[in-house]
């Protein structure tokens, strides 16, 4: 067993342990309890220690990470689900995006690294038409957030959902995402993507089978990719994409630490780059 496999196995074990403990605390699928009781009420939003403010808007592409209320899917120092991998994931990803593509993203400004953190009911959200949500299994939006999310999507926003699973060890995150989506856009229909869609060919030609985060530790579930088309018309743009049973953010996070094999990390970077290029062109 080589070193990288050891690291991967260790990371997987850690992830499993954290996830299992989290699930146990929450009493299984979704719901209240857990760290939201420990840290504050369900209407409070976690503030990551690495957060030093949002970059000032200057028109550049800026990676926007969605923050939501509550403390579900807690993972120790990484906080609740939405802040997992922050800020390393976006810092690494925006550097890669800057280096290999013509996009000139915000990367860092002093202590501010990689991204802007925005809530769905924050007007600032609309300055970032492409955004990323980690762990939507813990997303329990109120009506105001749902309204903001709906407006965001209808106006032309594009959202990437990452780092969540379905049906593994009592996690039904995708089910939660579908339920919340049904509140925001009742008529929207989820479509499983095949890999032939333009989003998988907008910059790299993606092989979906290879684009599996080696750190996701989601058991034997192979990732699937789901999306919702504008007006439910496959000829129109994808409004969002969901990496079910995949965690490309974590792969980005650890790619610079030798924790993830370069080849494997590259595949997840490819997915991210394609998502961004697609969102900026479609």
């Amino acid at each position, binding site marked *: 067993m080589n070193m990288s496999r050891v690291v991967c196995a260790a990371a997987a074990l850690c992830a499993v342990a954290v996830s299992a403990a989290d699930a146990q605390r929450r009493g299984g699928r979704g719901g209240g309890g857990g760290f939201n009781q420990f840290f504050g009420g369900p209407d409070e939003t976690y503030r990551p220690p690495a957060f030093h403010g949002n970059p000032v*808007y*200057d*028109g550049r*592409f800026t990676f926007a990470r969605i923050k939501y209320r509550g403390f579900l899917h807690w993972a120790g120092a990484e906080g609740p689900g939405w802040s997992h991998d922050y800020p390393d994931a976006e810092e690494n990803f925006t550097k890669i995006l800057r280096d*290999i*593509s*013509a*996009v*000139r993203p915000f990367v860092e400004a002093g202590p501010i690294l990689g991204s802007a953190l925005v809530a769905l009911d924050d*007007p600032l*959200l*609309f*300055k970032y*038409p*492409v955004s990323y949500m980690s762990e939507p299994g813990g997303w329990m939006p109120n009506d105001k957030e749902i309204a*903001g999310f*709906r*407006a965001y999507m*209808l*106006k*032309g*926003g594009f959202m990437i959902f990452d780092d969540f699973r379905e049906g593994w060890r009592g996690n039904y995150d995708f089910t939660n995402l579908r339920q919340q989506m049904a509140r925001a856009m009742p008529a929207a229909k989820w479509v499983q993507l095949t890999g032939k869609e333009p989003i998988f060919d*907008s*910059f790299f030609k993606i092989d979906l089978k290879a684009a599996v985060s080696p750190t996701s530790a989601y058991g034997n579930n192979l990732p699937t990719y789901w999306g919702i088309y504008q007006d439910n018309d496959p000829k*129109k*743009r994808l409004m969002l994409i969901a990496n079910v049973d995949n965690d490309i953010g974590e792969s980005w996070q650890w790619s610079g630490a030798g924790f993830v094999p370069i080849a494997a990390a590259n595949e997840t970077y490819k997915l991210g780059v394609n998502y*961004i*290029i697609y*969102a*900026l*062109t*479609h």
Partner: protein
Amino acid sequence: MANWLEGIFQFLFKYRPTEFAKGSLAFGAPFSVVILLLAAAAIGVPAVLSYAGVRGKSTRRDRWVLGGLRVAALVVLLVCLFRPMLLLSAAVPQRNYVGVLIDDSRSMQVADENGKARSDWVEHAFGGPDSTILKALRQKFIVRLFRFSSGAQRVDSTAQLTFAANQTHLGAAVEQARQELDAVPLSGLVVLSDGADNSRVPIGDELLSLRAKSVPIFAVGLGADRFDKDIEIRRVDASHSVLRGGSLVADLLIRQRGYAGARVPLVVEDGGRIVSRDTITLPADGAISPVRVTVVANDAGPRALTFRIPVQPGEQVQQNNAQQALVDVRDGREKILYVEGEPRYEMRFIRAAVEADSNIQLVALQRTAENKFLRLNVDTADELLGGFPKSRAELFRYRALILGNIEASFFTHDQLAMLADFVNVRGGGLLMLGGRRAFAEGGYAGTPLAEVMPVVVSGDAVADSMTFFADLKASLTPPGTSHAVSQIGATPAASAARWNTLPAITTVNRIREVKPGAVTLIKGTMAVGGRAGDPGAPLKSYEQPVLVYQRYGRGLAIAFPVQDSWNWQMDPSSPAEDETFERFWRQMLRWMTSDVPSRVVVSLPTDQSNPKNPIAIRAAVSDSIFIPRNDAKVVAHLTSDSGFTRDLSLDWAIDRDGEYRGTFTPDQPGVYTVRVSAELPGGTTVGDTSYVRVADLNTEYFDAEMRAPLLKRMATETGGKFYTPATAGSLAEDVALSKHGVTVVNQMDLWDMPAVLLLLVALVTAEWSYRKMRGLA
């Protein structure tokens, strides 16, 4: 001169002022002038001396006054002895001809003379043998009657007049009548008209001809030179062609009398269906007010749009409340190339804005990495396969071009020159968007494109981190208020209001100067609480153009130095269903392609014509790189909705490269389609289509007030005279004194004028009265 004044003059001086003006003074005394002078001296000197010698109680002053009066009386008598007379040439009765031209157009039916039609006076004065003026003329002349509209035609009597012609061309009519009477002694032409010439042809040449031939015009102006109550849409200027779904902007000129300040509806109809309705405020009496109307052209094909103000109570002319314009609503797909150097939101939102527009094909060449491109919306697998076009033929296939955030060094020098030629030679529309690699910041200063841009592009390229930045609030300039591209509301006022509520946008391109001749439609002012300035050098206030354009060569160059107009779409202040952003960009792309020429451009002199008027067709033909070609086989295929078909060969006009001409004369009303196809050597066939509406147009009722200045000019420049019906009583006598034709010189004594007798009596009475007053009698 007023009639009563002229009567007094004639009483005092025996003859009319005209006779004095036409005649010359002479003396007919039978004695020699010397004898008469000696006699005067023999009488006058003793008289003066006798006064001078008298002393008594008279003063020196008395003697001078009395002497002066006596001498004056003697001088008057002496002048009478000289037998002054007026020598006047007059036409020999029944030896000369007079042409009477009667306006037979519809405007003569206008009832603006105390409720009577203008034609009524014609009937009264020229209607029969006993009619006053005709009778007077016939006593002195052989009279030839003509009716005229676009030309003159002989008639025997006014019974043949219809007052139904739809055109008035005074110059052509008088010239035609003069030519017809060229072989006979002609004393003059009498023109009975309202002067409402609508030929749009200057009359100068015809007047020169009449002067050269010594034919005076005696013009009688019929009708009121000012209506009491009338509203008139004088003119409609609209684009001849618009892309389906686009906004058609029409400029109207409206004039009114008697309704100043009234608010009236302005309706636009397309085939009887109301497509726009607005309320306008009428201008001051006599003032011409411009009004701009925007209509969305949803139905393809030639559309005859009617612009109408409903008839208001008391209007004297009702037919001039509506005007028509023929607009070709194209249903084609305009191909626009958008080259974007950086994947960014602006491109994604602009693409989305026009995605559903079936008339716009926005082909995107997106640089995603160094030498790596994403091609979107291309027609074929090999389109733009090699990146940005490298030949003019490849580039000129597009009708408009958008340059996104892409630096000048991306292009070769040849490609930059091609881009300039795209506007200048091909006539395409070019839009440069803002961005850190656009304008001067992108290194365009000194390139051929800097010349094309409507703003001054100067200075070195700037590093990404050092670019200027400003938050701008956009607002319309006065020209922008009514421009098609800025119409984001139902009316210009609603559009202006909407612009004021749009969220702020940002720029990274500092525009310091707009070129002379360029037009700024939208300006940006530093938003409240916003930022502006170079890094580390904030400004307290800032303003710069947001949308500027200029015509460059055959094409259109637009600068939009904004990097994130997508904020107008995404900002939470507007509802998700708001279509402001989409509308703006659809209109922008339509504007860019609106006047872009094809390889064949058909032009007709007018979009509306009366039947039987010849229509000249011009077709400009060029090759794939828009160089005019003189070796094409060009045919105009003419069809109309009334079943007319004809193929007309167009010939190359030697005086102009690439231009082919021909003429056809439509007989029947209808919308005529003129489809021109040009076959170039090698077999390539290209074409273009234009339309003309042939109908009985109501042109006679526009600008229909009696045009006295034109008639006066015709009279004075030819040596004739201008009359109104009230002063036309002396017309026959004036024509008789015109000195033209066969004339005889009349000697008319002046010594027996009542004025002379009155003068003598006055002088003698004055002398007597003075004596009486001074006690010298």
